[in-house]
């Protein structure tokens, strides 16, 4: 029991010592740090390049994770949109007419749909029009009295 307590003391005291060492390392000046790195047989410049690479990789990987996550969310949303049964007009002309009628009814949607990318509805690709109509359907915005 006594030796167990002693062992715990040694482990925790050594941990405190590492805290002190960490503090000492972080207090090193630029020159002192380079001197230490050089003293261990490494080139400070190369060590700096390695540090830069490690940081860049960690930041890059995290960005990849974020992108993959947002892709996954997007795919989920697309799948849920496709799951809703919707009978859209078959011809592009009819689809555009439906969209125009919808936008005429819900004026406030115009700035959200007609952006810098699509100044006119006719600029939109068939896939984008389908997607937009589906989204409007899910939001319940396709239910209106046609003029």
């Amino acid at each position, binding site marked *: 029991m006594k030796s167990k307590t002693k*062992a715990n003391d040694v482990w925790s005291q050594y941990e405190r010592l590492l805290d002190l060492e960490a503090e000492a390392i972080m207090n090193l000046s630029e020159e002192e*740090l380079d001197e230490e790195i050089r003293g261990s047989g490494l080139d400070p410049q190369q060590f700096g390049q390695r540090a830069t690479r490690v940081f860049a990789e960690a930041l890059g990987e995290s960005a990849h994770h974020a992108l993959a996550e947002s892709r996954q969310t997007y795919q989920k949303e697309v799948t849920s949109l496709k799951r809703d049964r919707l009978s859209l007009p078959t011809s592009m002309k009819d689809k555009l007419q439906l969209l125009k009628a919808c936008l005429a009814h819900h004026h406030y949607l115009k700035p959200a749909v007609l952006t810098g990318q699509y100044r006119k509805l006719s600029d939109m690709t068939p896939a984008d029009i389908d997607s937009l109509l589906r989204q409007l359907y899910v939001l319940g915005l396709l239910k209106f009295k046609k003029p």
Partner: protein
Amino acid sequence: MVATQDEIRRAIEALSLEERKSLMWLARQLVARIGVLAGGREDEDFVHEAIEATLAGSRPWNKKYSMRDHLRWVIRSEVSNHAQHHNSQRYQEPILVSSLNSKDEEDIDNEVRAKTADDFRSALPNPEEELELKRREIALDKIKCHMAALLGQHSMGEKVFQLQIEGLSGPEICQRLKITKPQYAVYNMQIVRATSKIRKRNLEGLL
């Protein structure tokens, strides 16, 4: 005071080359100190892990502190956690033949069996753990001697150092030694300087 992911990213990107270098150097030195408990992991693994954990929010960054200080604490903590985990995982008691047989016996005659010593994990440390313990014990003794020489035998600085490594916090040390906070800060600075001196001299490869 907890930052958004965007703020964290920008703060990490804003770290200077010197700051990145010192964080990598810190990880490198700590990995060397935990010896075999690093289990083959390198400095860059811990730096990588610290950045990822901060960005993912599992190690939240309090904007009250600089990103450099935050990453320093995370690296320090990751290294320590890894050493502890590795220490508890690396040694498994061999399965004894007697304990394998006892299971068969139980199945055959379905008797209630009294537990034997084989059923309990040994309370004694494993040989590797003991070796590591010894290494740390020797290192601690030597560092304490060098600290006493640098700070002055029985000086207030040495007393503060002793209490620090015993795990007392700053306010607790002030109370115990009846010193003020500014006085404590001075002694703490002396201790950090002494640690740097010992590191610089690389006394017997201790620190």
